[in-house]
């Protein structure tokens, strides 16, 4: 069996000034996850490592760098799934944690549920010892500019591509 890891950093229109950082980011995430596979680690560990790295990279719309909602706030969603057991875990509308994908994995590993949302997800994170982070630490200048331009233009979204999550 030849291990393989594939990642994506999101679909849509990627502005030219962000394309190099986006490409570098996915390559770095692939290297991090693939190193786990090369060391005999599991596919679950590899995908969580790769996605965590992408969440920590402000060039991507997840974790630090998440787009803002209509109130200028960050609400994040994540899922993991294990193909051996069909086990899965997810969180939705979660706030103030750095790595929602790691919380999703805890939902899979530590609960009998498939998805925890909003305040319940936050309470679960606290119970699991996942540290909270200030919302400001997840918001980038680019995200602020994007949502400000939409509000100033009186629109709900930029373009068809802008609707993508």
């Amino acid at each position, binding site marked *: 069996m030849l291990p393989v890891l*594939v990642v994506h*950093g999101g679909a849509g229109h990627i502005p030219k000034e962000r394309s190099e950082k986006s490409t570098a980011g996915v390559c770095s995430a692939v290297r991090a996850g693939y190193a786990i596979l090369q060391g005999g680690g599991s596919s679950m560990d590899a995908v969580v490592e790769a996605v965590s790295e992408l969440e920590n990279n402000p060039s991507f719309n997840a974790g630090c760098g998440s787009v803002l909602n209509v109130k200028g706030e960050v609400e994040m969603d994540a899922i993991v*799934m294990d193909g051996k057991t069909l086990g899965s875990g997810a969180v939705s509308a979660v706030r103030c944690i750095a790595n929602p994908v790691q919380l999703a994995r805890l939902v899979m590993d530590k609960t009998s549920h498939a998805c925890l949302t909003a305040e319940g997800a936050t309470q679960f994170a606290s119970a699991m010892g996942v540290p909270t982070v200030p919302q400001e630490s997840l918001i980038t200048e680019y995200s602020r500019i994007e949502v400000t331009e939409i509000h100033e233009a009186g629109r709900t979204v930029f373009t068809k591509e802008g609707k993508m999550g």
Partner: protein
Amino acid sequence: TVGAVAVDSDGNIACATSTGGMLNKMEGRVGDTPCIGCGGYADNKIGAVSTTGHGEAIMKVTLARLILFHMEQGQSVEAASDLGLAYMKSRVDGLGGVVTVDPQGHWAARFSSPQMSWGAAQKDTLHYGLYTGE
């Protein structure tokens, strides 16, 4: 949105997807990402998919599971990914992208949107791209 799929040396398959959602979304809006079969799916017997794109459209066609359905019917990872994305475009006018693997380690990164950043590693070789055809 970001995501990953992998096959390890034991043949076990997994997927993960994470997102900040849609720009300027309503408070409380939840898209495809945390929904099984939409933002991702993994089954050792078939393969795994992680998706990105128009969240509501992805949910309407359960894109990840749809692609794996095509693989169950004998389609390759590339063909199944393209079929799923084409169906989403034709039925609900949705665009997006996916990364897909099968239990043999075949992989694909396909998208109907203008761009999608992606990377893959296998046999100590790194592949990556941003535009169609890369």
